[in-house]
């Protein structure tokens, strides 16, 4: 019995007081259970802490993924829709086929641009100025004439008739329809609005008076806008020094004292009244003076709720669409002649400089050809190499060296493979650049180590008892491998191959080196036609200045991600389906 009793603590000599601590004192140490219990709390705390840290890591990771996806989807989802404008097109025989030959060559070369423009001009007869007309024609995509040509070529019978046709809108119009140009706020008129011609003003200037202080919102809005520091302080009574629509103000009436002058650096306000649109240039709480962007149908007073004030939050100078064009689009929209439809062209068309004409079909086909060839080249070679190294090769310093190098190869930056491809395949072997063939060769080099490593581990995971069983009944080593080991290892190998392919699908850097970054309009038709691939297309679009390409970039990324997800899912399903238990 140990005498190590804590000093100062009276020792209970007899066995009478056999309480917990006493019991502990009797053999000089605390019972195990007490020691365990004492440390138990600490252990559980440590466990909880660890769990919390782990959960946080997962949550943070998931949050980043969620943010990424939200951003991409938020930006990209609108690319799956495309704006179309309905126009009444007169397929005038004089323009298309003045001689009436219906010769396809003639039909193909006809001036469809003129047809489209004429239709647009007919829709907006009030547009007469040359500059305005150019802007109006800009509403239609460069692809619109092509649409008309296809229509005519498909059915020459429509020549000489008048058809209502949905034509592709320009990317600016498209952006406007998707709300990327400017937010539009609409405020119903409260008072009775009367229209008064502006004395001494230009023909198309008009003054709108309201019985209520409807326009004070405009003043307030401008004041807010200035307060935010996004425009210079007001300079009452003086017109802005510069601007596309300088207004002379000598004839201002006295009741317009305290007016605000709206320039192109400020949010635009328009008054829609009596079928016309007035762009506000000067404003007081109860009256505005502005230019008619769209003629009025009548000059009668408009009662409350029958007129409205439109507010374009982005100043005219900050957007590509001028107020005039916005007015036309608004008009089209009001008439139901403009709408967004599913963007099939995005999936069927090749690359283009025009965002509304640009599609990913070329890139998808390029990726398909490249990856198919990559799989064809790398899978058999990779599996063969893995089989040989794992099952047949003697173990010596040489095979060890090969193994180390394969593992190293998997870690080589992919651009090095691009350089290799450039130096060896293009410069030495003379394989045409920019083709899926050379791309596949480079990607094969890149995915081979992955496939070999995955295949080897798949082979290793086949239990040796199966090999023994096969050898034991007298199968030759090759039969053992092909009858028993390989079937069991194939799911793992396929999984590795698919993951390698997924990596190859997302690879850009090596392909840049071998010219797959070229701008290629045509959808590739084979392994030897110039092509680009999805990630490179993303890279190219991300570089383009047009706003329309922003959403297309995101949409292409979405498509790429979808492919990757499908491939990974396929890998998982394959493994599930063919995984054997033994």
């Amino acid at each position, binding site marked *: 019995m140990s005498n190590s009793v804590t000093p100062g603590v009276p020792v209970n000599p007899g066995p009478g007081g056999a309480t917990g601590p006493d019991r502990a004192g009797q053999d000089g140490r605390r019972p195990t259970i007490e020691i365990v219990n004492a440390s138990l709390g600490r252990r559980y705390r440590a466990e909880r802490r660890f769990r919390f840290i782990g959960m946080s890591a997962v949550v943070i990771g998931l949050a980043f993924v969620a943010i990424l996806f939200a951003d991409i989807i938020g930006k990209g989802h609108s690319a799956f829709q495309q704006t179309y404008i309905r126009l009444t097109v007169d397929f005038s025989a004089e323009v298309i086929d003045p001689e009436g030959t219906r010769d396809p060559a003639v039909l193909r070369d006809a001036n469809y641009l003129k047809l489209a423009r004429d239709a647009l001009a007919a829709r907006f007869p009030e547009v007469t100025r040359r500059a305005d007309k150019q802007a109006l024609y800009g509403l239609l995509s460069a692809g619109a004439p092509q649409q008309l040509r296809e229509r005519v070529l498909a059915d020459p019978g429509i020549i000489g008739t008048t058809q209502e046709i949905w034509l592709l809108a320009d990317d600016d119009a498209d952006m406007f329809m998707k709300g990327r140009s400017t937010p539009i706020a609409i405020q119903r008129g409260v008072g009775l609005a009367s229209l008064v011609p502006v004395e001494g003003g230009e023909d198309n200037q008009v003054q709108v008076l309201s019985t209520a202080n409807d326009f004070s919102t405009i003043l307030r809005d401008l004041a807010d806008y200035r307060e935010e520091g996004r425009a210079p302080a007001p300079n009452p009574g003086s017109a802005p020094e510069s601007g596309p629509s300088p207004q002379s103000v000598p004839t201002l009436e006295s009741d317009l004292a305290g007016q605000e002058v709206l320039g192109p650096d400020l949010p635009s306000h328009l008054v829609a009244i009596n079928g016309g649109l007035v762009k506000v240039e000067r404003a007081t709480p109860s009256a505005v003076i502005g230019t008619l962007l769209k003629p009025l149908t009548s000059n009668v007073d408009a009662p409350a709720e029958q007129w409205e004030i439109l507010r374009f939050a982005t100043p005219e100078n900050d957007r590509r669409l001028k107020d005039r064009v916005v007015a036309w689009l608004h008009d089209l929209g009001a008439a139901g002649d403009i709408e967004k439809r599913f963007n099939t062209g995005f999936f069927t068309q090749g690359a283009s400089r025009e965002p509304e004409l640009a599609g990913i079909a070329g890139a998808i086909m390029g990726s398909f050809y490249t990856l198919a060839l990559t799989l064809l080249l790398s899978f058999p070679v990779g599996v063969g190499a893995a089989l040989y190294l794992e099952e047949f090769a*003697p173990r010596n310093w040489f095979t060890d060296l090969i193994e180390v190098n394969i593992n190293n190869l998997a870690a080589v930056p992919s651009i090095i493979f691009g350089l290799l491809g450039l130096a060896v395949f293009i410069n030495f072997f003379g394989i045409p650049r920019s083709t899926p063939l050379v791309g596949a060769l480079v990607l094969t080099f890149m995915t081979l180590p992955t496939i070999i490593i995955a295949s080897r581990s798949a082979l290793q995971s086949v239990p040796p008892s199966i090999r023994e069983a096969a*050898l034991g*009944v007298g199968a030759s080593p090759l039969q053992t491998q092909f009858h028993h080991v390989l079937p069991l290892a194939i799911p793992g190998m396929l999984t590795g191959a698919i993951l390698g392919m997924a990596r190859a699908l997302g690879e850009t850097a090596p392909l840049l080196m071998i010219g797959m970054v070229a701008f290629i309009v045509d959808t590739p038709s084979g392994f030897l036609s110039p092509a680009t691939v999805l990630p490179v297309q993303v890279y190219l679009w991300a570089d383009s200045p047009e706003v329309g390409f922003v959403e297309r970039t995101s949409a292409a990324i979405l498509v790429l991600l979808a492919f990757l997800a499908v491939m990974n899912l396929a890998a998982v399903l394959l493994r599930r389906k063919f995984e054997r*238990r033994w």
Partner: protein
Amino acid sequence: MNAIAEDITRMTGAMTADDLAPLRDFSGTVGDFTSPKARMICRNVDVHYGDKHAIKNVSLDIGRNEVVAMIGPSGCGKSTFLRCLNRMNDTVPGCRVRGRITLDGQDIYDKQQDVVPLRAQVGMVFQKPNPFPKSIYENVAYGPRIHGLTNDKVELDALVETSLRKAGLWDEVKDRLQQPGTGLSGGQQQRLCIARTIAVSPEVILMDEPCSALDPIATARIEELIDELREQYSIAIVTHSMQQAARVSQRTAYFHLGDLVEVGETSQIFTNPSHKLTEDYITGRFG
């Protein structure tokens, strides 16, 4: 006088000096390692794994219609020796086998000898039941198929049935031949493996601890099966269970650290082993 003594000896079976042979100093094997009906004859077999001398100068015969059990502590080389008999050691890197092993007079380590027919002649059953992850039928049919033992489907079907019957498994699986072999119980799997082995009509069957993963009832069935198979095949079995060796074998060989210490009739080994090491092992005095 001398004649009378001889008579007495004959009549009473008096012992001779041989009967009570003193323990030989350890060098070489105690007991008779030959078999009058020898099918496999092993002489002076040495096995090296790299630097390790795994089997030291072992000579042992495996006779017709007999079960030879090999016992000994772990790492004594009994499995290694078993694997020499159908050259499964060939697959082990760094393994060298010296000595002479013949099957029906043919040196199996001869340069001319192909291992594939050898393994068809000397089948093997492993410690863990290892049916192929295929159907029961395919498991049994695989060997005959790769060796081309049958001419058509009918013959193959018959062979599969015979093999399964011999393995005592037919009644249990005849209705589900197309189901995976891995779905059977452990004992059934092991009998399937035996059926797979006998489907290629071997002459010798090697069993490497065939019951170590099985419960006693399954073990008993395998033991019964081994006893039946003895009618047709020569069987060498490695086992950790001394009772099993005592139950199934006719001759027993005790291995110790790569040496074949003692060989003898199973009844003699288990009642009156000659060598101290054998006795210590058998009576549980080891280590």
